[in-house]
């Protein structure tokens, strides 16, 4: 009930807000009905378009890398008999850490002058890298942080799936002379399609929500090179105080999410998950 109250009502509210301009005067809200301007703003909003594109690049690259790394680790850990417990304990740490703490940790490590990454690079005799300050690298640096943060999560899901695979099938294939590479690509990966689809869906959802780390690391800069959707929304709401336009933007994002969920579910059922 509370859930409905705090979610459905805001959405109705959003629809109301989205057609209005809201000003504050003496701590009182003043609503004016101006449906046209907000839609006009949406069409004119270049930064929103950039942020959509950045979010897309961020999500696709980060999730792809995470899935590949996570799958590799899952298969390797399942193959070596020792250290399973240790590895699982270590890997759960980034999942449970506050994203803000992760952001501030990496901010320190990325530091141009004294960050550990540049210390390593300069000790190898190379030029220090401006991880967060250069327009071409910043998004890439943010992606690295995300990969660090979420690969363990992908690993946990895929590892559980690998451990649950029918051992007999793999044994049978091995007896029939399948080599490791064939086992991985012809047996293990096809059998894991449902788990892969779930991991993919989970991660893409979370990647589209990304806010905390980017806020901490770059706040969208330099320029608009790491501006993501959530960050843009935050700025519209709380830095530019455009409540009405922000509401319309929110609705657009919600609609896009629902469309994405629908497509994703279609795709997932196409490969055989639920």
């Amino acid at each position: 009930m509370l859930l409905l109250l705090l979610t459905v009502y805001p959405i109705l509210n959003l629809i109301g807000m989205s057609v209005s301009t809201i000003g504050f005067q003496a701590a009182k809200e003043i609503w004016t009905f101006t449906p046209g301007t907000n839609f006009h703003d949406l069409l004119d909003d270049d930064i929103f378009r950039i942020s959509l594109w950045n979010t897309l690049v961020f999500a696709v690259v980060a999730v792809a890398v995470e899935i590949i790394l996570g799958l590799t680790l899952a298969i390797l850990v399942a193959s070596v008999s020792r250290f399973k417990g240790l590895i699982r304990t270590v890997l759960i740490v980034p999942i449970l850490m506050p994203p803000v703490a992760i952001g501030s940790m990496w901010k320190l490590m990325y530091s141009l002058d004294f960050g550990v990454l540049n210390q390593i690079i300069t000790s190898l005799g190379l030029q220090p890298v401006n991880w967060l300050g250069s327009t071409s690298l910043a998004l890439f640096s943010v992606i690295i942080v995300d990969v660090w943060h979420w690969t363990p999560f992908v690993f946990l899901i895929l590892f559980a799936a690998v451990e649950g695979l029918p051992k007999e099938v793999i044994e049978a294939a091995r007896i029939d002379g399948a080599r490791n590479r064939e086992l991985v690509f012809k047996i293990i990966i096809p059998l894991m399609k449902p788990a892969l689809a779930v991991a993919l869906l989970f991660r893409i959802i979370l990647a589209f929500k990304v806010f905390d780390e980017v806020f901490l690391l770059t706040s969208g800069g330099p320029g608009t090179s790491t501006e993501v959707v959530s960050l843009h929304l935050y700025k519209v709401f709380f830095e530019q105080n455009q409540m009405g336009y922000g509401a319309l933007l929110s609705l657009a994002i919600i609609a896009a999410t629902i469309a994405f969920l629908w497509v994703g579910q279609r795709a997932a059922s196409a490969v055989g998950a639920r």
Partner: protein
Amino acid sequence: MLVLRGPARWLAYLVLATGIVIIIGPFLWVALQSFKYEIAILQGSWIFTPTWFNYSDVLYSHRSDFPTNVWNSVVVASLSTFFVLIAGTLAAYSLSRLRWNRWIARTFLGWTLIFNMIPPLTLIGPWYLIFREVGLYETLTGLVLAHITLHLPMTIWMMMAYFNEIPKEIEEAARVDGCDRLDAFWRISLPLVTPGLIAAGVLAFVFSWNEFAVALNLTSRATATVPVAIARFAQQYEVQYGQMAAASIVSTIPALILMFFGQRFVVQGLTMGAVK
């Protein structure tokens, strides 16, 4: 799974060792920074005299809000976890056991799923206005309500997975033996889903403890939570790196503690829905 021999085996161990170093390394390095004076951090020196200065400055000094922030976080995370568990468990039980109209159940579940997917920031605008109107803006109560709403869908889905695991027959047997529905729920079903309660509880607590976007916009200086405080260290004109590192390390402690106690359940809970 695979049979690895000779060089392949060593390569596998090497990859795993690298992975562990990459995960732990950053954490240790930042922990190291938190024991340095600002000047040693800025010089990037590896040899230094360790100091508790950053921790004592963050935790005990008069100009630091951090103890208040920790207290706020503890209050918000505990209360929201408590209520989320009650509401989530009851909702999950009812969806899993009572005969709801298919249409209602599906709409409800679909809605929770969608709500779980949209960026929380899309709702922050209306929440902000509503909370201002009813006087919950910048209060802990408001933040608790927001966190309950945010984490309820996840809890419902997780608890449903656990309730669905229990065979209906156990409960039916209890009913035959004279328990009414409430008794059967309380004495039979609930104890059987304890692992689920622990997992969902730990996750709800940790997520609430970690939550930043909503807390940032709905709290004031006096009601800010730990993540908001850390962000403030980083956003100040002159970044206080030492204090930032110390605060980050401190903020990770609850997660680490919970991990050691609830790890088995959390891993199970995280992966349960996924494998099925």
